[in-house]
């Protein structure tokens, strides 16, 4: 898919909260001692005064700072998340107000499991590309939910990124094209009355993550007449280190291409934030002329793929805001499971 007007990412910003929980603390609480099988060493969790709104605000401010755009020129703020603080009341209005984009702005929260953030990117790309908006902000951010004791508890993490789309001449990365690939696949879901999502065990791998990532990625490469080797960098959704590496290898992307965006290795799976945070980490290192391949995945299920081309402006504005590396470097360890439960809001009074 391509827009009639040329569009680019004109600013980006990341966020990862400071607290980290070692996964061995979670394993110990549940009587598991097999450390070798833990998918990641530690995961990021929000501080007591953080949620997906406050994290989105900081990432959005960084995106606006790098773009050097007056916030009242932003015509859309779309937040993709599956950990909205309110069941009814948009997160996007708080974010729009906090960055100074109100009142002449479209705002909405998007929902599509871990694909919500890249769906916001598709919408922002189209909104600018149609000429309806000069600038549109897309955010993917989560303080991921997981059931205590569930396998997902070892990876469900917090963080994400924001991308401001705007006119191509101002781009830090031009958008060359995008594609979405969606089917009805019941791999992961949560009804309104449930506190934690269910996953359809055997459904999560091949028919879900792999089939949809492959569909969107191959479809976009074919439509652009490109091969994986035409790209300097690539990022896929990263529910765990294994899935991301398996799809990359199968598509014939190398470890070198995905390494800078492999944030899951350091902090776990940030759900709606995961592929976007990986893209932000790649923009932190990409050089003028580097091609970047992006592919998200969300349960339910679907993937969004983007082809991007980094510009010289990327290197000029990079230092205007903290890098993903800055956020990964600041950490405070929460070693006891009780404190972790309190911080993730999992202690409920009956």
């Amino acid at each position, binding site marked *: 898919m391509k827009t009639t007007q040329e569009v680019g990412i004109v600013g980006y910003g990341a966020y990862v909260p400071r*607290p980290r929980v070692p996964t061995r603390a979670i394993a110990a609480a549940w009587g598991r001692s097999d450390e070798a099988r833990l998918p990641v060493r530690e995961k990021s969790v929000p*501080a007591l005064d953080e*949620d997906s709104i406050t994290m989105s605000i900081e990432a959005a401010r960084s995106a606006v700072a790098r773009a050097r755009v007056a916030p009242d020129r932003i015509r859309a703020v779309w937040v993709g998340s599956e950990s909205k603080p*309110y069941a009814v009341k948009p997160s996007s209005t708080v974010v729009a107000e*906090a960055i100074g984009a109100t009142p002449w702005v479209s705002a909405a929260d998007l929902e599509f499991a871990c694909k919500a953030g890249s769906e916001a990117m598709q919408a922002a790309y189209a909104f600018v590309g149609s000429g309806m908006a000069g600038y549109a902000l897309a955010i993917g951010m989560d303080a991921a939910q997981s059931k205590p004791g569930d396998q997902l508890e070892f990876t469900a993490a917090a963080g994400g990124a924001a991308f401001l789309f705007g006119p191509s001449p101002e781009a830090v990365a031009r958008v060359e094209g995008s594609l979405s690939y969606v089917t009805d696949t019941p791999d992961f879901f949560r009804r309104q009355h449930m506190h934690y999502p269910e996953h359809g065990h055997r459904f999560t791998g091949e028919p879900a993550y792999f089939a949809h990532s492959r569909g969107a990625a191959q479809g976009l490469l074919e439509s652009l007449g490109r091969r994986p080797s035409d790209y300097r960098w690539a990022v896929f959704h990263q529910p765990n280190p294994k899935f991301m590496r398996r799809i990359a290898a199968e598509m014939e992307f190398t470890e070198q291409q995905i390494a800078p965006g492999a944030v899951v290795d350091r902090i776990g799976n940030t759900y709606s934030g995961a592929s976007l945070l990986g893209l932000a980490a790649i923009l932190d290192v990409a050089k003028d002329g580097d091609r970047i391949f992006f592919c998200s995945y969300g349960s339910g299920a679907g993937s969004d793929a983007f082809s991007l081309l980094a510009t010289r402006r990327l290197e000029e504005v990079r230092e205007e805001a*903290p890098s993903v590396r*800055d956020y990964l470097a600041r950490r405070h360890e929460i070693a006891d499971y009780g404190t972790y439960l309190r911080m993730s809001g999992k202690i409920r009074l009956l």
Partner: protein
Amino acid sequence: MELPRYHRMRRALYHLEGSACAACGGRFFPPRSVCPSCRKGDLAPYRFSGRGTLYSYTRVGQAPRGFASLAPYDVGMVRLEEGPLVTAQLSDTEGVDLAIGMPVEMVTRTLRDAAEHGYIVYGYKFRPLLRP
């Protein structure tokens, strides 16, 4: 119900928006309608940069009503680079040795327990610089 009050204060809470006096150049936070220095009433909204230094601080272990979910936490007085002194909660200070004169920056966080009706108040706090 304090909703109208929070709504009225949102520019101060989200942007650290105070006021600046056209007559004497004084800058104030929270915003004033009459200049406390020269007594003129010609004040315009002014957004502070959010950068400042720690003037004093203390740890709150026994939180007052409405703040229990955040305890323990630090509260500080911050000297904004534009002049005013602001009292606010400090964030991301666990394990950090706070010191008077330490540079801090504004962040937006939840300010208190969600009220009984569930409303979440977001506003300014200060943290040690993310990139020192």
